């Protein structure tokens, strides 16, 4: 039986991060993953991540995955794929199915980073082909290049539902409706706004009554629900769809920990059965650590920090570093993690209605219920300004931990300040050169360049555009408002695609000046 200093189960963002930190400190580390590719869910994430520059904000998920794999290889971490851990026994013995046999390993320490599995909801017809999880949709689109369906209903308005919904649009699918049983959109407003401006309708306080079809999904009926989750008769709505995509939360895959005898708890706030552990992933059994979604559902950025913490804690457990070094290293990671857990979407605010931003501005009600900030609400936010000439307009209206826009502007036009969750504001004393770096840097695609004095009677609007085919200069079409409705005629006057924009194209359209504050999307004729 082979013995390692550290055995890690799961080669996702947290497992790999843990492996890197442990290996850097001289530990002999092996990582098992049951999948044929490493990286967990990272390689399915084609969107730019939120956060701060130090934590890979505005970098696309799959690029972060590549960086992690490179770092793991450099530090000598061994990753064994197609290796299914089937048991975790006494004294840290791990049994792994590799190929046609089972192998036994002993770890002086163990980190469980198995992640989570998708939840499903049941309704008549939920077992029909065509009802899929959001993760399956991402696997099909972003790993295998297969379109999951043509007309889709998305259930779930958390960040997963919103992000995958947008990716489905990018993939060429139509989203018939975005539905959530909750009365308010659960994910970031900027993610919802990306969908709403293309015309996706949101149905909050609604859920699925039934899926129709004999051999596969051919339609779906939704209805409004009251506060005790009962359908309200007469509110049924029918959609002809071929796919129902569910993004209704995740459950930690914590069974190995339970088997090993770690103390567990049923904690709905953390997603279900989770091990009882401290903030650095130490479970009730000395030498067994956890990191990432298995210890409570969050997202990839915090999973990577948790992984680093667990890796360092394991190094200290085995004496590879002393307590002083441990505390020093953990202090900086603590700061990073608490930064990510601030703002309106912080874990402690889950499910709470926040009426005002930290700046004391009333939150957009329309954004929470319809997915877009209404025309009469947008003016009150600090990123929305009217200056002569070209200038950024930032439709970022919720306190979320993200600040790449501040560093993107070479002129220093954009101010967020020390507090990473503050709303971005425009510094009027600095003049914008219209480079568009801020537009491309915004992971929420919420920054536009507006020039209300573009030419007599016309304004120009530059927007982030991540769809194919890319419209050509001179093409005429319609400008759509934040709500996805047609507001006016528009003409494409510029298309910019620079390597520095990292595949976010900048589309500039010309609209009658009176629509400068309304037009936010372009649809070719």
């Amino acid at each position, binding site marked *: 039986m*082979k013995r390692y200093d550290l055995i890690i189960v799961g080669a996702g963002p947290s497992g790999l991060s843990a492996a890197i930190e442990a290996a850097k400190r001289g530990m002999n580390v092996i990582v098992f993953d049951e999948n044929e590719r490493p990286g967990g869910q990272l390689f399915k994430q084609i969107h730019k991540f939120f956060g701060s520059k130090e934590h890979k904000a505005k970098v696309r998920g799959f690029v972060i995955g590549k960086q992690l794999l490179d770092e793991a290889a450099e530090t000598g971490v061994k990753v064994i794929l197609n290796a299914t851990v089937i048991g975790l026994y006494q004294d840290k013995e791990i049994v792994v*199915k590799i190929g046609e046999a*089972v192998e036994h390993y002993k770890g002086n320490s163990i980190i469980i980073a198995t992640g989570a599995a998708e939840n499903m909801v049941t309704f008549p017809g939920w077992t029909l082909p065509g009802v899929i999880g959001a993760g399956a949709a991402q696997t099909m689109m972003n790993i295998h290049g297969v379109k999951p369906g043509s007309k889709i209903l998305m259930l779930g308005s958390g960040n997963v539902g919103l992000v995958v919904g947008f990716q489905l649009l990018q993939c060429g699918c139509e989203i018939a409706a975005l539905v959530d049983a909750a009365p308010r959109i659960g994910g970031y407003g900027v993610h919802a706004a990306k969908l709403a401006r293309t015309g996706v309708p949101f149905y909050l306080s609604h859920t699925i009554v039934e899926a129709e079809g004999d051999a596969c999904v051919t339609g779906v009926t939704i209805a409004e629900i009251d506060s005790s989750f009962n359908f309200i008769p007469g509110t049924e709505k029918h959609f002809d769809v071929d796919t129902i995509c569910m993004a209704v939360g995740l*459950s930690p895959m914590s*069974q190995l920990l339970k088997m090993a005898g770690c103390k567990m708890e049923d904690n*709905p706030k953390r997603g279900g*059965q989770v091990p009882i552990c401290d903030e650095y992933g130490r479970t009730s059994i000395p030498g067994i650590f956890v990191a990432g979604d298995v210890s409570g559902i969050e997202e990839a950025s915090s999973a990577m920090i948790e992984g680093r913490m667990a890796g360092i804690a394991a190094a200290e457990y085995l004496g590879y570093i002393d307590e002083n070094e441990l505390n020093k290293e953990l202090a900086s990671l603590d700061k990073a993690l608490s930064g990510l857990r601030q703002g309106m979407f912080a874990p402690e605010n889950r499910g709470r209605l926040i009426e005002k931003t930290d700046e004391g501005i009333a939150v957009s009600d329309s954004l929470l219920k319809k997915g877009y900030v209404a025309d009469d609400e947008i003016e009150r936010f600090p990123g929305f300004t009217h200056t002569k000439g070209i200038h950024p307009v930032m439709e970022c209206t919720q306190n979320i931990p993200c600040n790449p826009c501040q560093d993107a502007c070479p002129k220093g036009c954009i101010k967020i300040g020390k507090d990473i969750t503050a709303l971005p504001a425009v510094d009027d004393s600095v003049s914008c050169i219209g480079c568009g770096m801020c537009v491309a840097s915004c992971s929420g695609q919420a920054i536009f360049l507006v020039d209300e004095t573009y030419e007599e009677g016309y304004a120009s609007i530059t927007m982030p555009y991540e769809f194919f085919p890319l419209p050509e200069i001179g093409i005429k079409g319609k400008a759509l408002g934040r709500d996805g409705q047609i507001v006016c005629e528009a003409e494409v006057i510029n298309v910019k695609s620079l390597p520095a924009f990292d595949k976010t194209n900048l589309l500039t359209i010309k609209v009658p000046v009176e629509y400068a504050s309304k037009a936010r999307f372009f649809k070719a004729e």
Partner: protein
Amino acid sequence: MVNDRLRDIGEFVPSADDDMIICRCEEITKGEIRKAVHDGMFTLTEIRRYLRCGMGLCQGQTCSKHVKNIVAKELGISPAELEPATSRVPMRPIEMRIFANEAKEVRSDE
């Protein structure tokens, strides 16, 4: 209290969605799970042994939350009061011939 078999949970009342499949792998319906509770299966472990739900290919990854909620509702308790079923080897489905095939030697990729 959860395990008090003398507790009166009332008669089994049929419901319109009783034939909806909950455990896809073993094709167990909502009605079968509800009836099992009235047959005296008050714990998730008993339900699993009685019906095999959660013992198929996905090992309960999809249905265990649903089964838990259905059983809790039938017993008139909160799902958190129900002990989850035991976690044991093999954690993932595995063919018996592989399960029984201990690797002869340590991997040579060291």
